[in-house]
């Protein structure tokens, strides 16, 4: 039962009126956005306590239709708030995930018996960790998986006739992203030319492609990128040579991935090796999309960043619609080209732009 207050309190509240001047529109707007420093917020709150006029302005300036700024939890789907139904779904889902993870792990051990040895012999000093951390190629249409695990990355690149798909790794990432996508555009000499699939996987972790890169170069090195399994110059040379000689498909663009922990990674070799890409500190990303050099990443708290130079530099984009900025968690980002794109929030709202994020429409 909702609380009630004595009538005496209600009467006194009605009789109250502010003593001093009213906060200006800047303060009221910043208050509504939660952008006021405590030193200013407290007096504004004191004023609002006593001033029905200003409370009215704040309330009217926050129309129901522009509810984008509400916290993600406020508009959670009904079923997620219905406890019995929620548990009824959650328990089987967890059980299913555990089962899939176990099966996946067994499968990986069967397929990649020498995975650790392979990484270790590749010259990396952190082989045990890398074996668990780096995404594993599960090529649906690529050469045999056992071969892949034992091959040198360059050989794999040369022999892969189709883009590899990235799937989940049992122990290190959720299995909800089992759907794969061909994320690499084959070069002109590639026998198979496929349209990039724009249906990205943003559940658990997100994968995206593509961009033009030179193998071996560490783009954006100044941004603090670090290779998970770095390609040596020999790897690069071998990859290029193998590609040019065998007519294999070098990835024309990088693949992008957001890890479960919210970090952004890119891969130039069909996901065999990943390097982290720094966007901004303390940023929890949840989705990525790329088209050519344009890369968009979205994360918690409405954080949306765009890079027009394949991840070297990032610019924050604040979607605003009906006067309210997006503050919800972004769970999916889709950009079909440099201009048109959409983002989906945790509450299911879709924000659409047709001008590179300059203006947004909420649906």
């Amino acid at each position: 039962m909702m609380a009630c207050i004595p009538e005496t309190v209600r009467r006194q509240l009605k009789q109250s009126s502010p003593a001093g001047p009213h906060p200006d529109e800047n303060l009221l707007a910043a208050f509504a956005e939660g952008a006021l420093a405590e030193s200013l917020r407290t007096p504004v709150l004191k004023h609002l306590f006593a001033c029905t006029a200003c409370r009215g302005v704040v309330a009217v300036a926050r129309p129901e239709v522009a509810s984008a700024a509400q916290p993600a939890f406020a508009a959670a789907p009904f079923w997620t708030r219905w406890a019995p139904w929620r548990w009824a779904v959650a328990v089987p889902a967890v059980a299913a995930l555990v089962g899939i993870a176990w099966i996946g792990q067994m499968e990986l051990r069967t397929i990649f018996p020498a995975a650790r040895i392979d990484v270790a012999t590749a010259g990396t000093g952190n082989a045990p960790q890398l074996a668990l951390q780096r995404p594993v190629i599960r090529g649906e249409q690529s050469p045999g998986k056992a071969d892949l695990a034992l091959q040198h990355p360059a050989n794999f690149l040369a022999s892969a006739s189709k883009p590899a798909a990235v799937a989940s790794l049992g122990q290190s990432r959720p299995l909800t992203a089992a759907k794969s996508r061909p994320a690499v555009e084959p070069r002109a000499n590639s026998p198979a030319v496929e349209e990039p699939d724009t249906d990205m996987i943003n559940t658990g972790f997100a994968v995206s492609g593509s961009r033009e890169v030179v193998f071996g170069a560490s783009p954006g090195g100044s941004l603090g990128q670090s290779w998970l399994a770095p390609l040596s110059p020999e790897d690069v040379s071998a990859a290029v040579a193998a590609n040019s000689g065998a007519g294999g498909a070098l990835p024309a663009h990088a693949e992008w991935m957001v890890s479960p922990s919210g970090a952004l990674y890119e891969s130039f070799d069909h996901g065999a090796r990943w390097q982290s890409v720094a966007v901004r500190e303390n940023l929890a990303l949840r989705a990525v999309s790329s088209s050519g050099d344009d890369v968009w990443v979205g994360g918690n708290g409405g954080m949306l960043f765009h890079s027009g130079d394949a991840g070297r530099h990032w610019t924050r984009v604040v979607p605003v619609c009906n006067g309210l900025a997006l503050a919800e968690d972004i769970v999916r980002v889709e950009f079909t080209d440099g201009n048109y794109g959409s983002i989906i929030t945790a509450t299911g709202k879709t924000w659409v732009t047709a001008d590179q994020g300059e203006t947004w429409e909420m649906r």
Partner: protein
Amino acid sequence: MISGSQPATAAAGDEERGETSPARLAGLETLVSALYETSGAARFDLPAAEFSNILNQIAAKYLPLEAGQAAVRELISKLHVEELALARACAAGHDRAWEVFLTRYRECLYQSAAAIAKDEALGRELADSLYADLYGSDSRAGGRVSKLTSYTGIGSLAGWLSTVFAQAHVNRLRRESRWAPLEEENDDDPRLAVPPAVTPIAVDRRLEHATGEALASLSPEDGFILASYFLDGQTLADIARALQLHESTVSRRVEKIAARLRKKIRDALLSRGMSRAQAEEALEADVRDLQVNVRARLRESVQETPAGAFSKQRESPVSPLAANPRGK
């Protein structure tokens, strides 16, 4: 070093003279320079010195004279400097700035106005009216004064525009309310209904004082929640959005505030000689005779704020919020 104790009038004088190193920003030249770069003010031909003066004005407006360099740094580093530069460039009549402004905000202006007015035609009228103000059709002393000059960048420009809309809408309805019957106005926008007038009758002084003390003991945020929920009839979701809290958190706070108020008042009544039964009876009674003026209790706390951050009294003392739109 920053001269936090320097009179505001001196800072204003600096601004008028267009000096490049305003007093409040002393020692922060590097930050100001970086903010100038970030703002992109140069592409709107806004000189660094003028930009610096704008920041100085804002610091003087929101911070007390004794505020230190750290406070000034915190304030200006959180400003929406890009939007601030855009707004000031528009106010100065820069064509390219207006192009950018219209590209970014025109559609939002109309949508926001329509949402606030709850009517597309009315919203368009409201937006056109505001647009004229933004452009500066109102001339003072022969000069064009744009409302955009009052944007300080402390919040987003879109949020500011929305608040300006809301203010204009509230003012407009108030003006119309002088001619329209209250019932009609309630139908128009329940958020802006006029609460019934309070008719003072006889007073139990003990209950009056106890209630006043209990209300005065509330934290500003609790007071805001209390007034918004019980007086304005806002929903828990609305209050949660305003305070960036979880809806369930606000729900629990409402319960706690109500319980705490009741306990404080009862304790105060007991300390004033009432029996427990009498105190409970007084709390349950529909008291329509209280004449406590909370204004005096709130005046002290409100006046602690820098005067520059607050404007003059609003147009009308009439409450713009419904007595209880939730229909309770």
